[in-house]
């Protein structure tokens, strides 16, 4: 029995409609809320672009933008560097025992809350292991997450510890798909290992690296759970990313309209960065 295209369409329509509704409704509703003002007694009124104009003059918003990008760029650079290094190591050491490979990739399997709690204990300036090790080596102790200067780099390091293995897996896939003929030609021409890495491997890996950047960018720009567990945006406002600021504004201070406007803005930023990176992917494609 033959099935017509129309019949197939009718069969698939409910699932498609459901999926679209699940995506479209929350987005549309958040957009709608972003034009509303919520009083603390729960009443709402339409204020047009009021929430957006408020954002322009809101110091915490701009502070959030700066911290979001600072954390994003620092984490991304570190993760690409260590992820690529780890992938090269795993690619070269083909005989690496299975459990060592599993150990390498295990951090990103931990739930962020567990990772957050674990690092909170390790980095405690008074009782944590990190300062114990530093002082045992004769180095000065650090305040880690409690230092306004160091909180973002510390968060970036924790995230790098957790997500570099994920980047490594993506890069490893890319390494395995590189054409061997290029390497054979380079070897015949007498290119050294470093030259092969800089002139062949890394340029050919660029599309893979950009894919990893896209995947990590979405998460990093929405950085939330680790900060929520460890600092809640502090000390002072030193780790108050846009996402944390929006969350606290909505769920702790009841300003759901303004929080929605903040989240719409963050979504636009994420979308913009993703589109820009997608364009870059086309440019570096080979």
């Amino acid at each position, binding site marked *: 029995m033959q099935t017509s295209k129309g019949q197939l369409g009718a069969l698939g329509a409910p699932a498609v409609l459901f999926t679209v509704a699940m995506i479209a409704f929350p987005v549309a509703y958040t957009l709608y809320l972003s034009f509303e003002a919520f009083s*603390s*007694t*729960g009443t709402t009124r339409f204020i047009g672009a009021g929430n957006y104009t408020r954002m322009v003059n809101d110091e915490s918003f701009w502070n959030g933008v700066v911290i979001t990008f600072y954390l994003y760029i620092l984490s991304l650079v570190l993760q690409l560097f260590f992820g690529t290094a780890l992938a090269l190591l795993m690619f070269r050491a083909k005989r690496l025992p299975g459990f060592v490979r599993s150990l390498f990739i295990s951090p990103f399997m931990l739930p962020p809350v567990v990772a957050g709690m674990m690092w909170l204990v390790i980095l*405690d*300036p*008074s*009782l944590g292991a990190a*300062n114990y090790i530093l002082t045992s080596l004769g180095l000065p*102790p650090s*305040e*880690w*997450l*409690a*230092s*306004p200067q160091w909180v973002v780099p510390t968060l970036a390091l924790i995230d790098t510890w957790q997500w570099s293995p994920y980047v490594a897996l993506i890069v490893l896939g890319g390494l395995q798909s590189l054409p061997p003929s290029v390497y054979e030609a380079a070897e015949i021409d007498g290119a050294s290992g470093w030259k092969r890495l800089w002139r062949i491997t890394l340029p050919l890996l660029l599309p893979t690296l950009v894919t990893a950047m896209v995947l990590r960018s979405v998460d990093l720009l929405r950085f939330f759970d680790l900060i929520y567990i*460890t*600092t*809640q*945006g*502090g*000390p*002072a*406002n030193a780790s108050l990313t846009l996402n944390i600021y929006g969350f*606290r504004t909505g*769920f*702790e*201070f*009841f300003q*759901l309209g303004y929080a929605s406007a903040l989240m719409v803005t963050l979504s636009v930023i994420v979308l913009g960065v993703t589109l820009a990176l997608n364009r870059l992917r086309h440019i570096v494609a080979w």
Partner: protein
Amino acid sequence: MQREETMASRKLTLVGGIVAALALSTTAGSALAQGFDWKAHKGETITFLANNNPVASAILKHQDEFTALTGIKLKVDSYQEQQMRQRLLTVLNARSDEVDVFMTLPSREGRQYAAAGWYTDLTPFVKDSVSSDYDFDGLGKALVDAARFDGILTGLPLNIEGPVLYYRTDIFKKCNVEPPKTIADIQSAAQTIKKCDSSITPFASRGLKPALPYTFSNFLHNMGGEYMKDGKSNLCSPEGKAALQAYANLLKDYGPPGVVNYSFYQLTSLYRAGRSAMSFQSSNEFPSVMEGGARLKDTAIVPLPKGDGGSVPTTIGWALTISAFSDHKDAAWYFLQWATSPKMQAELALEGIAPPRQSVSQDPQYKAWLEEQPLRQQWQKTLDELAKTGTSEVGFPIVENPESREYIGQAVDQILLGEADVDTACKAADEALDGLIARQ
């Protein structure tokens, strides 16, 4: 984390459970005799949104007894404090009947939820539908009043708590320091201890921005300060500045490294490990602090010593309330009445949940529990003092109380981190808070 109320739970003995069951059966019997029928709502189901803290855990150990007594089925949704509030916000904002009973902190969100009309007024229930053994008047008056907004009784107290000063008697003795009698004494004691034993943190308290108003408020009130005067923020008053300076400088000069991120968890760990000489933190942490027994013999507990304005401790408590959108308000009221009854609160007290009823502290079983350890008696004596003289004002007495705490925390942290002096910090906070007050 912003949890103000935490406590390690003690295991309830089997004997205690049986006694509770018998006691409640007796309560039911005598109530029935007077026309109150615990079975009036048999077969109904109510949903309880609980904060997953020791108070709720202790109550829920007895939930089968509630169902046996009333025939009402209890469905429990349990979350951590922050997540519980997120869920509440979603449910109540949608005016949904999904939640019948929930836990609330009147000192924090009471005014806000009351203004939004999210609480059921419990006044008619406590007047007209009570078992003869309930003794509504036996509940701590200050806590009941703290849950009353514009004449509406929004909740019934489950426990009593407040920040108290835990200090190490052995270190004080070794360093030849007298127990502090004033806030200034805390500063001089901390200074002496710092010189005497550099391995000990002289003083520790909350530094985490959203959490610190709980402890700071006691400093402000003891200094004679008040958050608002003539409808304006009053942090830059001489008393306000003195409190900001005293609290922030104690943490800055004598606190542990990283104190700016400290909440209950770090404070308890540090004190229990014997690494701090004075710890100003929640009375609820008593069981956790004493866990392992290392601190039982070398600790003393007192309310925060007085300041220039005398002694005005912070005294708050969790309350149990009924959602305004509940379809089972009468059945929900039975749960409230059962959970806050004298007998039930006597049971909870044996697990270290400080009772909000004076009568419970006279309960023979509870008295025996207190007498097992002299320090438990000190703890109870301190709580009695809190109940008598305390205020539940934590943060500004406005609808946006939760947001007001943000600016108080910011002012303290700016001084603590050396980002601003007290004048700059209080001025910025006053400006932000005046804006918040005006928004009401």
